[in-house]
């Protein structure tokens, strides 16, 4: 018995070694696990032979912008990465394109022409959009006006669980619980009739937004959740259609022969590879695997800027603001060792004084240093909340005309600091010899610890430290910090906001009293009383001072008048100094010089509809 066991054991060891040699040196290379792995996304097609990820050859484009999208359902997507894919495989009523001089413009896509709204009753406006004749879905079926109406009604239905449900709020009849959109269609005449509840300056842009793309009722209803995860049911109407999807690896699109302008689509395939390791993404760009990437490693940016700017390293426009936000309920009352939120912390201290303290904190920040030495990708120091690149609706850039919140010239920093010292000296002890405040309450700086956020945090901490202002860093994972911000469980945090559409209201409406993104809690119930203004020298409540302006913006049809209200609203927001803009985003990306004719939209979409490789 003993002998047999020993023999078996020896055999086992031998086998281990043998199989080790075998699979280690000969078999392993032959078994490439990922491509042959049946994609979870295609459960219905186990027999579909999945092709290996395509190699770079003329016409086959492989790009890498991020990791897997949460969803490719136009109604449910809310990420820029998902939107980029949707922009390439769906076609909305309108689309983004470039004009002869390279400017981004809106052009009709499914629609025959861009239409002007007509005022109907009660300040409502009506759009009658006509579809091009003979439009088809990627499976060859006719694309009808009712497909758009179905898609929009589906997206606003709370049961659909759409992230961007509220992007339909400009349409008459919108309600987030019981929506009844004022839209109708005539499939024979190919028309869609839409009524907006008021004049909407950016409605044309919405008609090019992914959430407004059509989806097909029979497809969706047969498989409400999984239709957008299955290659066989993912029917689209854009320049490309899906051909292969390996979750965690890549999605491959091929030209859609049923796209109305299929003749102009030149790529033979478009593959979105998934990865979120910036070093690996960069390496794959350097060896030619990818022809376009985002997420450039910060460590490479100085080198790329120096040697390859505008060759294959491009600093694209991106409409967005990086800012610090304060919880207005946190009191900086002198004498406190750390900021507090109780009624006692507020006794003898006013919201107006608190706002002035935040203003001083903002003036101590050297924004030029941050963009030149820390972020280094062509960002611009911020001097207002609405970002650069945003139009005020009259064709004028908002920032060009809006009142600057502070000066950001290279020579202004000293004056800013002096002004800040003067403000704080009114209430805090200042040591002339050291130039530092000695009793400023310590507060927490909350961030999700990405390399960029940490570096900016360290720089700002240093700037404040020079004046005796101490902060402790509170690092929390993105998802955890999101909850804290929503619940007001923070004193100060960083945040970035990227535009959904090019209109300042997209930024201003964040701070409506009821907004879920109003992290500073402006106008919410707090220790100083419900709905308090927390502003400088005013007694109005926030909803009267600010919400009313937003309503006015949303209902004013005269664009010049509307712009005026937007400028006022931004000033009202400035005066509470609850948000301290730091810089305006850019989108540093890399694209092979061989890749031509793609569209980089300042909203973050990269569109390869008519792109080609030379």
């Amino acid at each position, binding site marked *: 018995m003993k002998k047999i066991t020993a023999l078996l054991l020896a055999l086992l060891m031998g086998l281990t*070694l043998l199989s080790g040699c075998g699979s280690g040196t000969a078999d392993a290379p032959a078994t490439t696990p990922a491509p042959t792995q049946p994609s*979870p996304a295609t459960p219905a097609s186990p027999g579909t032979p999945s092709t290996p990820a395509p190699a770079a050859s003329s016409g086959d484009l492989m790009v890498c912008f991020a990791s897997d999208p949460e969803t490719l359902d136009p109604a449910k997507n809310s990420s820029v990465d998902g939107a980029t894919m949707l922009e390439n495989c769906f076609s909305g009523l309108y689309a983004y394109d470039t004009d002869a001089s390279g400017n981004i413009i809106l052009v009709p896509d499914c629609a025959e022409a861009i239409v002007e709204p007509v005022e109907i009753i009660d300040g409502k406006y009506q759009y009658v959009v006509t579809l091009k004749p003979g439009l088809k879905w990627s499976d060859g079926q006719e694309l009808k006006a009712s497909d758009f109406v179905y898609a929009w009604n589906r997206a606003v239905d709370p049961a659909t669980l*759409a992230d961007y449900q509220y992007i339909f709020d400009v349409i008459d009849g919108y309600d987030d619980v019981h929506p009844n959109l004022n839209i109708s269609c005539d499939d024979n005449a190919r028309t869609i009739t839409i009524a907006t509840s008021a004049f909407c300056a950016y409605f044309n842009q919405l008609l090019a937004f992914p959430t407004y793309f059509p989806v097909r009722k029979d497809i969706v209803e047969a498989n409400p959740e999984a239709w957008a995860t299955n290659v066989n049911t993912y029917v689209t109407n854009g320049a490309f259609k899906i051909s292969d999807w390996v979750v965690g*690896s890549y999605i491959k699109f091929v030209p859609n022969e049923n796209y109305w302008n299929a003749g102009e689509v030149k790529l033979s395939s478009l593959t979105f590879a*998934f990865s979120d390791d910036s070093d*690996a993404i960069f390496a794959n760009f*350097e060896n030619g695997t990818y022809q376009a990437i985002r997420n450039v490693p910060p460590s490479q940016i100085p080198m790329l800027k120096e040697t390859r700017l505008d060759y294959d390293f491009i600093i694209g426009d991106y409409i967005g603001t990086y800012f610090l936000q304060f919880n207005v309920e946190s009191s900086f009352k002198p004498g406190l060792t750390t900021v507090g939120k109780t009624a006692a912390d507020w006794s003898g201290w006013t919201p107006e004084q608190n706002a002035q303290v935040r203003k001083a904190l903002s003036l101590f920040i050297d924004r030029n240093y941050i963009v030149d030495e820390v972020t280094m990708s062509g960002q611009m120091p911020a001097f207002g909340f609405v970002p650069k690149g945003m139009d005020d609706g009259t064709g004028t850039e908002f920032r060009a005309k809006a009142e600057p919140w502070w000066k950001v010239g290279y020579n202004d920093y000293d004056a800013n600091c002096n002004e800040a010292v003067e403000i704080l000296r009114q209430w805090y002890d200042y040591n002339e010899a050291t130039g530092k405040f000695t009793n400023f309450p310590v507060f927490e700086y909350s961030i999700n610890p990405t390399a960029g956020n940490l570096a900016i945090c360290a720089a700002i901490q240093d700037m404040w430290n020079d004046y005796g202002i101490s902060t402790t860093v509170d690092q929390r994972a993105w998802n955890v910090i999101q909850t804290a911000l929503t619940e007001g469980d923070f004193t100060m945090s960083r945040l970035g906001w990227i535009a*959904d559409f090019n209109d300042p209201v997209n930024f201003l409406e964040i701070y409506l009293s009821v907004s879920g993104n109003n992290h500073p809690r402006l106008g919410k119930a707090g220790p100083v009383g419900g709905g308090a203004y927390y502003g400088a020298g005013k007694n109005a409540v926030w909803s009267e001072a600010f919400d009313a302006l937003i309503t006015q913006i949303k209902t004013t049809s005269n664009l010049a008048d509307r712009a005026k209200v937007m400028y006022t609203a931004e000033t009202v927001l400035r005066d509470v100094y609850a948000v301290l803009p730091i810089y305006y985003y850019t989108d540093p990306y890399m694209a092979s010089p061989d890749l031509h004719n793609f569209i980089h939209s300042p909203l973050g979409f990269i569109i390869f509809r008519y792109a080609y490789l030379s």
Partner: protein
Amino acid sequence: MSAKMAKYIGKRLLLAVVTVLLTICITFTVMHAVPSSPFNKAKALPPAVIIALEAKFGLDKPLTEQFFIYLKNVLRLDFGDSIYFRGVQVLDILKGGFKTSATLGLSAAALALAVGVFLGSLAALGREGIGDKLIQVVTTAMVSLPSFVLALLLLWTFGVWWPILPTRGDMPLGSLMPIISLSLYPMAYVTRLTRSSMLDVLGQDYIRTAYAKGLVKYKIIFKHALRNALTPIITYAGPMIAYIVCGSFVVEQIFSMAGLGKHFINSIQNSDYTMIMGTTILLSVVMVTLNFICDILYTVVDKRVDFS
């Protein structure tokens, strides 16, 4: 099989099941104790949508009720839908991930064992020679190099500067670099283990006896020395295979492969509750099973193991 052994195996089996149950329990509790929500997006969702989402995933029920519902579903192998990846079943993601990680892991483990045992024996036989010294230095370096440095080094060396290997795991031959990255650490460890174990065995009386009896050298080395020297390697190999099969976040991340390691880390970052539970259960089952097999093998290998 003796009654004693059967009892031992039964006990181990029971322990394995209890371990998995405990893991489920702890993960569930800790996961819900983290103050985050899968529905907290950078741009806040409308309240009506959040309520509907919570109802859809049963998150509106009391925690204990959620736990028992989950347990009941898991027993029917129903892991639910991923909360993050809309409309995708957790089981489908896990199947794909396990296949990727297991293929990578088993190949790497086999490579590590084969090369490690070979190099280790070589070093022991040529003790204190140049080969031995070289192997010692290289293995020390390999054991101390973090895997992300190693993987990046490989990526840049053979993928960019001297581009002879594909850089994505899903390309033909793409699993070569990930397998090498994964195997270097255990390979170095096995080499060192084999060397010391071999040296130990080579110094034993029965080896001297074998030489004295005039047996052929290769027979002494392979039949008597190596076989006995392998015992500690088997002990190491069990947990090593279990560990490596569970996937490496770093290697999967760098070579863009959708394995268990990547799914596990990402699911936590996304607060994807169903995915976190699914990956944890799968990983703990794999671990417990391999350890169980190891325990059993152990009793076979070493008769001195006490069944009580």
